[in-house]
């Protein structure tokens, strides 16, 4: 899965990147299932790999994006600080994770039925569900406003 993500972020062609990302999402859904979250795994496939990535693919193909991004200047000037930042952050995170005694304990067997998840979602977190639904509504309105034709002479 890390390999798929790595391939995803290094492709020049955005369409290839999205396809690799779908592969990575399927692998992540499998991990969710193994960690005892079957409903979330199913939604990962349906929402992320299904809806969101198709939206990306649709936009990329609609705009007809060509593979571009010609690098400027020598390679190490672009890559150097980035690799330094990423690797140092990774090292610090791993150090913090593995010096905690919690990290060596094992995750036990856990399986959460979709029914229990739904009960928690609509009883204790009902307010959060409402807020998220309002946010989806506002996002739809915002997308509509952004998608209107440009006014004349606004370029």
């Amino acid at each position, binding site marked *: 899965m890390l390999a798929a993500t790595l391939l995803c972020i290094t492709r020049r062609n955005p369409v290839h990147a999205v396809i690799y990302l779908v592969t990575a999402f399927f692998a992540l859904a499998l991990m969710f299932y193994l*960690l005892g979250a079957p409903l979330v795994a199913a939604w990962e496939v349906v929402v992320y790999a299904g809806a*969101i990535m198709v939206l990306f693919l649709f936009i990329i193909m609609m*705009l007809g994006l060509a593979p571009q991004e010609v690098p400027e200047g020598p390679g190490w000037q672009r890559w150097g600080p980035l690799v330094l930042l990423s690797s140092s952050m990774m090292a610090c995170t791993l150090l913090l994770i593995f010096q905690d005694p919690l990290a060596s304990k094992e995750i036990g067997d856990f399986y959460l039925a979709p029914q229990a998840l739904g009960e928690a979602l609509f009883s*204790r977190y009902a307010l959060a569900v409402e807020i998220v639904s309002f946010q989806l509504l506002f996002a739809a309105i915002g997308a509509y406003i952004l998608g209107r034709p*440009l006014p004349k002479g606004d370029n």
Partner: protein
Amino acid sequence: MIIPFGHALAFAAALFVLGLTCVLLRRQIIMILIGVEIMLNAASLVFIAASAYWQQVDGQVFVILLMAITAAEVAVALAMVVYLWRRKRTLVADEFNGMHG
């Protein structure tokens, strides 16, 4: 799944760093958005692993809310991408320097 908790956290950290690298490295706005998606997925992996570790339901509820919010974010962001494309016919982030920052 019988794995140490730290391994799940380390995997999520690797995923997050990959997403961050994508955001910092790529110039096209679409690829920057994909990097944000990867980082959000790393966060949801941490939520799921913690939910399984403490045998609680709350982590999975938060992941579902996170998915809904991500869907909203992607809808608005892609609408903005289309808007920027119509204005300037490019999606390279360096070109949008109209405020001369």
